[in-house]
């Protein structure tokens, strides 16, 4: 088992990992911007980093996307781009889809953006954004201004977004079920202030009717007020959220999330608290203090103040460069034993994108190691060890082949409870906002008769 873990960490990085996209985006500036030479902001105002907050409104990652995230989804990610493709990707189009003419000068017939705020008003009329409206008061030179992301509204007063996933699992039985249905709303009335609301369903693998009947369909998955875009991309938010910790993979089944009450698909992972930090170019630091519902109950769908006696705190810090990153996280909960007891969790994680350094190596790697303790019902400590690794190969634009491996020993004192899961699959993003992710998964458990394989596929529609 250890050998297998080492081998896959050696190869590794990518499930539906959005951190994967972050690591990949850094190799070309025009993944995130209309290219030409703009006036570079002062370091304190640069967003030129691979932190989650570059592509997502929530600095901790996931959910509603920023203009940069949406532009990446239109220009870089899909087979068929609806925004100008990054120049270095012009010869990486899927065969028969789009041109393969990297030699064409970028400026020949592609749109260019404004160099600075003074030039921005000239681009306002070119904005054509179906899901964003208005402009907040208080625009300053460090505000994202029109024209930097083609036709997208860079800094809207109101934005609507969504994530919908439909999944199918084939093993001894076959399941087709709704996995996610989230509608995001961001209200941004003035510069530095945003209210983010994410209303979603509690997806149930038992089917559509169980999902619709669930007491948490719909519910506030996130609801917080945030002041942000301060120097060095510092921010503070207060409300319901999932604390920043480790790699926020959107494969919520990875043991690095599930073993530590961080499975983002579950209502019970939501906490009520405050989080503050900065996600600069390139260091980052995030700290949170929170209250939570007891481990055995889900918080009220709408009352974000429905919490119990315990409290928790989390820290997440590191360095996210353009071609690599490294981070460490710690999270602790303190609560009565009958509410789940205390937990302490520590993580180190890293990513590497050789593609950033050498254009002929379209690989991306990421991995995380978590360890920690929780309390059994008896009060004794239960020691855990979990690892995750992933490697992606971006074969063409819109086609990513991947392998991922996660391994967990949920109780270091107990025999035969460890298991490892190998995934091999492909992500096809044919058109912006439409991703088909399919993978063969092999679960290896301590009892040889229990090891088994299944096939999992999901359609992810997002905007």
């Amino acid at each position: 088992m250890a050998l297998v873990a080492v081998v896959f960490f050696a190869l590794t990085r990518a499930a539906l990992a959005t951190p994967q996209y972050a690591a990949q985006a850094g190799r070309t500036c025009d993944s995130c911007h209309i290219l030409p030479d703009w006036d570079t902001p002062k370091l304190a105002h640069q967003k030129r980093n691979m932190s989650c907050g570059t592509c997502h409104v929530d600095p901790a990652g996931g959910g509603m996307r920023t203009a940069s995230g949406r532009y990446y989804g239109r220009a870089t990610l899909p087979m068929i781009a609806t925004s100008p493709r990054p120049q270095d990707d012009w010869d990486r189009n899927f065969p028969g889809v789009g041109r393969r003419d990297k030699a064409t000068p970028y400026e020949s017939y592609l749109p260019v953006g404004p160099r600075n705020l003074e030039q921005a008003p000239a681009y306002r009329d070119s904005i054509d954004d179906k899901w964003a409206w208005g402009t907040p008061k208080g625009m300053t030179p460090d505000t994202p201004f029109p024209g930097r992301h083609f036709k997208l509204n860079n800094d809207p007063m109101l934005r609507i977004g969504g994530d919908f996933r439909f999944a199918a699992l084939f093993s001894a039985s076959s399941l087709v079920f709704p996995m996610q249905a989230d509608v995001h709303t961001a209200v941004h009335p003035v510069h530095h202030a945003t209210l983010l609301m994410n209303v979603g369903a509690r997806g149930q693998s038992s089917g559509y009717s169980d999902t619709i009947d669930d007491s948490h369909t719909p519910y506030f998955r996130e609801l917080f007020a945030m002041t942000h875009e301060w120097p060095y991309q510092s921010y503070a938010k207060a409300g319901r959220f999932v604390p920043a910790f480790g790699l926020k993979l959107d494969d919520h089944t990875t043991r690095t999330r599930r073993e530590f009450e961080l499975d983002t698909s579950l209502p019970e992972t939501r906490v009520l608290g405050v989080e503050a930090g900065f996600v600069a170019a390139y260091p980052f630091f995030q700290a949170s203090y929170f209250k939570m519902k007891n481990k055995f109950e889900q918080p009220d769908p709408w009352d974000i103040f429905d919490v119990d006696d315990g409290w928790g705190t989390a820290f997440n810090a590191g360095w996210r460069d353009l071609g690599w990153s490294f981070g460490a996280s710690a999270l602790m909960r303190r609560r009565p034993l009958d509410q789940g007891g205390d937990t302490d969790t520590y993580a180190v994680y890293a990513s590497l994108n050789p593609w950033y350094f050498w254009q002929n190596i379209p690989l991306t790697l990421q991995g995380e190691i978590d360890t920690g303790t929780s309390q059994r019902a008896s009060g004794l400590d239960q020691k855990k060890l979990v690892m995750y690794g992933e490697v992606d190969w971006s074969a063409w634009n819109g086609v990513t082949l991947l392998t991922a491996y996660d391994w967990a020993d949920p109780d270091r004192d107990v025999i035969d409870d460890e298991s490892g899961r190998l995934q091999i699959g492909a992500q096809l993003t044919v058109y912006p906002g439409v991703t088909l992710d399919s993978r063969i998964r092999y679960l290896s458990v301590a009892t040889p008769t229990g090891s088994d394989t299944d096939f999992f596929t999901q359609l992810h529609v997002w905007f």
Partner: protein
Amino acid sequence: MHKTPTRVLKSQLRACVLLLVIAGALAGCASGDKTLDAVDPNAVALNPTFDQVNAIIHNKCVMCHDSGSGGEDNGGGDYLRLEGDMQPFETCTQIVAEAESILERIQDNTMPPGAMPRLSSEERLIIQRWVENDRPAPCNPTP
């Protein structure tokens, strides 16, 4: 001094190798050699209730072992189809009747199937003790 991309990449690769060595060392550390029952007899209740067992079955099994089991579409527009020989575990009577079979399949890890997560040590011990106590349940009051 400005670092070349190759130097940066090499240093990052070294960091990755270090991470791998740490991962290997951690994973290689011998895990426990006792069952949960032996490690911590009080980890779960000595006399688990049917409600505790039912909660586990509902969360981990009923997504497949529901009333649509037996080869029929379970209806309701769920598009859930099951193999023909699967037993439903939705009622107390069904769970009590299949208790020993359930315990056997979860202990050898053949259920849940495929790459779905297996039951935790605590969940297995709850079901084991409930079966050993003659499956007390509302539908089986005097075992």
